[in-house]
């Protein structure tokens, strides 16, 4: 390579999509960003984002959430990224690229990653107002705006993957949606007629209208030039206010054509196995704009990534090649699993099909088997759980009969073929090309013991995520095989997990910690006092189940008092100098002026420091233990209860002001937040629970950072679960959409009780969701589809909790025996603790503590959100 700028050779990348970004990462991994000047010209106004997940914008993801570009990565590696400035011309002779802004860049190596453009059939009025394509975030923003202001009926041209997503999005925006597909079935590329029929039924049940076997002949416009409908090839006319073209994509090869590079007959820049253009060794093409050496243009991201790696390796003078890729895909379309792998359409000679079809359940499974029994490919619609295993077996003869692989569980012949039967070279994660052997190696050679560790070590499961289930099975199998005895016990006293203890307590109706320890604890711990880990954990389990197992619902009763962490024992938050803070419950954050005044008066009268909390509450700090009952009495008199701003229980349900006042609000978020807070207050759980309700998609209450968050839609409520702020932030996942009030509450009831039942001690919902086998899909199956048949029981448990809720603070101030505990000194009840002292600061006061070296116990349990296994 000859250098043109001093001695530093220059690589110019045209296009910054997903594949372009991967190419940059591959350059960095190979150290090429250090030895080269790297220039990126990006047409879109934002750097690379997750186009595969584009539709999730409509379920609440922001463009920022979708971003795949870490600007720190760009700057650290000295990459010159120009967004909104596409390459316009290439002079291959002079090796120069000119951008729209007029900037000219000399290159030594040019990499084209220009992607593709949506194909719009050449019908009359295709560019009329109200016609859109579905490709970029800008497209979605335009669709959203038009749908909200000017349309009630939308038609999508194209019944493929993107078409279905677009139709679902229109429906989500409140439009009546039609899908027009020229082929006789939906998703003609991925599935066959049988699969298309199963898919059709499910899609129609969702309220979308599907027209197959018809073409679009003309877009009909009104006098103002805006869309009013479309004429179809069967002579009919479909009324619609907007049309979204989603009829496939074509390689964007114009730039290449203009500079004389070879392109294929049907488009695509022709490249060799190294992704180098056949016409010019200094130019590469990768991703959807490239016509690979096997004569195909790949529209999937995984092959694009592979091409990016190949090009980067070639530039680094390493050996790599891209000769073709597996077109296997697994998708969740409008909630329906659709997967196809290998030779899905049975094009091999003499191959045979094994088909299981259940139209009623929307299930269709087909395996393509070679004459010698080799599994060649298949299609799964409605249930694609077996995808990971089946795909890995493709190309080999499975150890069991093919029929047993597609029959549903319980249908006699069905066999659960575990991934342990896979050969080591089987590819488990095709996004990152990780084999089973590599995953096993992560466990045996790199001491990974959990799925998150293996993900980090091997990258497996970090792409589309479809292999995570298989990953979990492999990790466990490997751990067991290598004889690693993982002690999953709660602590030194119990060999059981929290989940197992919950089941024991529930099944045997055990209401006493000592009883549980003596009967079910580790041999050496029986008869002892337990420890600071199991006592509060068991106390929490007993409290969660109190009404059902017949224990007292009052956490200071009898033995339960000895199990509680100090905050639960004193019903307030212990602060660093031994004083407490009190946070009156203000459900939903709504408070009348009179009550605000009372809080101010109490704080003033007891000399407390006050601060507004992140959970829309007022925290009063600096109360001595003997002052607590007096403060509660004042609160109770004013109609308050103190709140569980401490402990492992529901903290707060935040809300935005919602429909009542806000001009954007679509539901009464305040009322819903109040209802939810009053329903779940006092619920003891494995860790604290936070919630919020937003009155519209603007999400001012930040519900997506909560354990359960609710966002209003025009049609009801969307429920998000597993969000977290704190040390390890995580956006919540959408569990269900457009719920009525009753449906929402019922689903939260089930979700919380299932979490309480199965989570580990101090495991927030976010880590729990990541940890439990099957993840979000499994949780959805259990709480939405009742796959375990336990929803009645979960709801019953919650009803019992709600019915038995008591104001613990009011109960305490009315119980002289309990009140006696609220003293600083047992032998001098009237003497305050002299260590609790204060000094003034900023018009209030702060703790005055003697200087001491503060040691921290090196325990993971101090950090929030960290797993406890």
């Amino acid at each position, binding site marked *: 390579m000859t250098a043109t700028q001093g001695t530093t050779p220059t690589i110019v990348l045209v296009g910054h999509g997903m594949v372009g970004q991967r190419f940059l990462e591959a350059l960095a991994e190979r150290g090429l960003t250090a030895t080269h000047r790297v220039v990126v010209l990006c047409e879109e106004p934002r750097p690379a984002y997750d186009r595969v997940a584009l539709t999730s914008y409509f379920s609440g993801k922001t463009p920022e959430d979708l971003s795949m570009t870490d600007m720190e990565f760009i700057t650290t590696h000295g990459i010159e990224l120009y967004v909104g400035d596409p390459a316009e011309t290439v002079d291959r002779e002079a090796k120069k690229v000119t951008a729209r802004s007029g900037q000219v860049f000399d290159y030594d190596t040019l990499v084209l990653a220009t992607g593709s453009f949506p194909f719009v059939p050449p019908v009359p009025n295709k560019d009329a107002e109200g016609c859109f394509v579905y490709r970029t975030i800008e497209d979605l923003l335009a669709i959203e705006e038009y749908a909200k202001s000017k349309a009630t009926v939308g038609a999508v041209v194209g019944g493929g993957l993107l078409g279905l997503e677009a139709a679902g999005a229109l429906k989500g925006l409140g439009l009546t949606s039609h899908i027009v597909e020229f082929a006789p079935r939906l998703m003609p590329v991925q599935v066959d007629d049988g699969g298309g029929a199963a898919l059709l039924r499910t899609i129609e049940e969702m309220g979308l209208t599907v027209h197959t076997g018809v073409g679009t002949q003309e877009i009909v416009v009104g006098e103002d030039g805006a869309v009013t409908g479309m004429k179809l090839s069967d002579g009919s006319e479909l009324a619609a206010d907007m049309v979204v073209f989603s009829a496939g994509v074509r390689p964007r090869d114009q730039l290449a054509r203009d500079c004389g590079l070879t392109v294929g007959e049907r488009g695509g820049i022709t490249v060799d196995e190294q992704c180098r253009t056949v016409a010019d060794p200094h130019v590469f093409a990768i991703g959807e704009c490239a016509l690979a050496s096997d004569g195909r243009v790949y529209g999937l991201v995984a092959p694009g990534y592979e091409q990016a790696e190949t090009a980067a390796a070639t530039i680094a003078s390493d050996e790599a090649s891209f000769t073709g890729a597996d077109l296997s895909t697994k998708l969740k379309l409008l909630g329906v699993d659709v997967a196809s792998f290998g030779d899905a359409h049975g094009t091999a000679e003499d191959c045979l099909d094994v088909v299981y079809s259940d139209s009623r359940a929307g299930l269709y499974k087909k395996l393509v088997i070679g004459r010698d029994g080799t599994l060649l490919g298949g299609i799964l619609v409605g249930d694609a759980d077996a995808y990971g295993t089946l795909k890995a077996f493709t190309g080999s003869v499975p150890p069991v009969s093919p029929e047993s692989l597609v029959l549903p569980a319980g249908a006699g012949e069905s066999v659960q073929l575990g991934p342990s039967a896979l050969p080591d070279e089987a590819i488990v994660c095709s996004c990152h090309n990780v084999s089973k052997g590599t995953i096993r190696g992560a466990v045996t050679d790199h001491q990974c013991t959990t799925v998150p560790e293996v993900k980090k070590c091997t990258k497996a499961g970090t792409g589309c995520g479809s292999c995570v289930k298989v990953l979990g099975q492999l990790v466990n199998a490997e751990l067991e095989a290598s004889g690693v005895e993982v002690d999953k016990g709660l602590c030194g006293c119990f060999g059981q997990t929290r989940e197992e203890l919950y089941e024991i307590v529930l099944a045997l109706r055990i209401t006493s910690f*000592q009883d549980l320890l003596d009967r079910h604890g580790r041999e050496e711990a029986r008869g002892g006092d337990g420890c*600071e880990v199991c006592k509060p954990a068991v106390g929490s389990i007993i409290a969660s189940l109190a009404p059902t197992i017949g224990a007292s619902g009052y956490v200071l009763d009898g*033995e339960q*008092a*000895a199990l509680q*962490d*100090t905050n639960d024992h004193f019903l307030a938050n212990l602060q660093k100098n031994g004083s407490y803070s009190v946070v009156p419950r203000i459900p939903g954050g709504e408070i009348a002026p009179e009550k605000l005044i009372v809080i101010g008066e109490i704080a003033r009268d007891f000399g407390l420091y006050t601060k507004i909390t992140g959970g829309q509450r007022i925290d009063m700090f600096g109360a001595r233990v003997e002052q607590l009952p007096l403060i509660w009495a004042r609160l109770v008199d004013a109609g308050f209860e103190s709140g569980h701003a401490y402990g492992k229980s529901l903290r707060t349900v935040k809300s935005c002001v919602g429909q009542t006042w806000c001009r954007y609000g679509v539901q009464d978020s305040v009322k819903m937040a109040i209802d939810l807070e009053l329903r779940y207050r006092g619920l003891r759980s494995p860790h604290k629970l936070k919630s919020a309700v937003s009155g519209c998609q603007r999400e001012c209450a930040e519900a997506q950072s909560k354990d359960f968050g609710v966002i209003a839609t025009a049609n009801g409520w969307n429920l998000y679960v597993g969000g977290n702020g704190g040390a390890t932030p995580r956006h919540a996942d959408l569990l269900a959409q457009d719920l009525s009030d009753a449906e929402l509450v019922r689903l939260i009831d089930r979700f919380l009780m299932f979490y309480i039942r199965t989570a580990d001690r101090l495991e927030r919902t976010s880590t729990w969701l990541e940890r439990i086998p099957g993840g979000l899909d499994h949780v959805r199956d259990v709480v939405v589809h009742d796959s375990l048949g336990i929803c009645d029981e979960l709801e019953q448990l919650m009803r019992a909790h709600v019915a038995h809720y008591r104001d613990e603070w009011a109960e305490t101030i009315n119980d002289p025996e309990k009140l006696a505990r609220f003293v600083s000194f047992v032998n001098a009840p009237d*003497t305050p603790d002299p260590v609790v002292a204060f000094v003034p600061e900023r018009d209030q006061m702060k703790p005055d*503590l003697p*200087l001491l070296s503060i040691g921290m116990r090196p325990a993971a349990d101090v950090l929030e959100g960290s797993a406890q296994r």
Partner: protein
Amino acid sequence: MTLAPETTDLTIEIALDDDWFTVCDLRALLPGRGVAALLPDGRQAAVFRDRSGDLFAIDNRDPFTGAAVLSRGLTGTHQGRPFVASPLLKQRFDLSSGQCLDDETVRVTAYKVRTS
């Protein structure tokens, strides 16, 4: 340490410089929890009772934070020995010796206890 079969009317005393100092009635102490007592010289003792009725007393001051809170910690058994975990940063202290189980350089005063 005495195991008292009868809990009524018994009082707890702790040893201070060869003298026994009366703290409270035995029944004021819940098994598995502690109470704080103010000593004549202004120091504080945390007094505990375990499930078998044994009594313990250590200094109430948490040496890691300076707050007088050890009486409000959770108790337990570690390798057969009773301990309390500070409610602030969770360091554990052996109730018989006052030794911190998480930092061998730290120890709090332990007192002898009896009932009478």
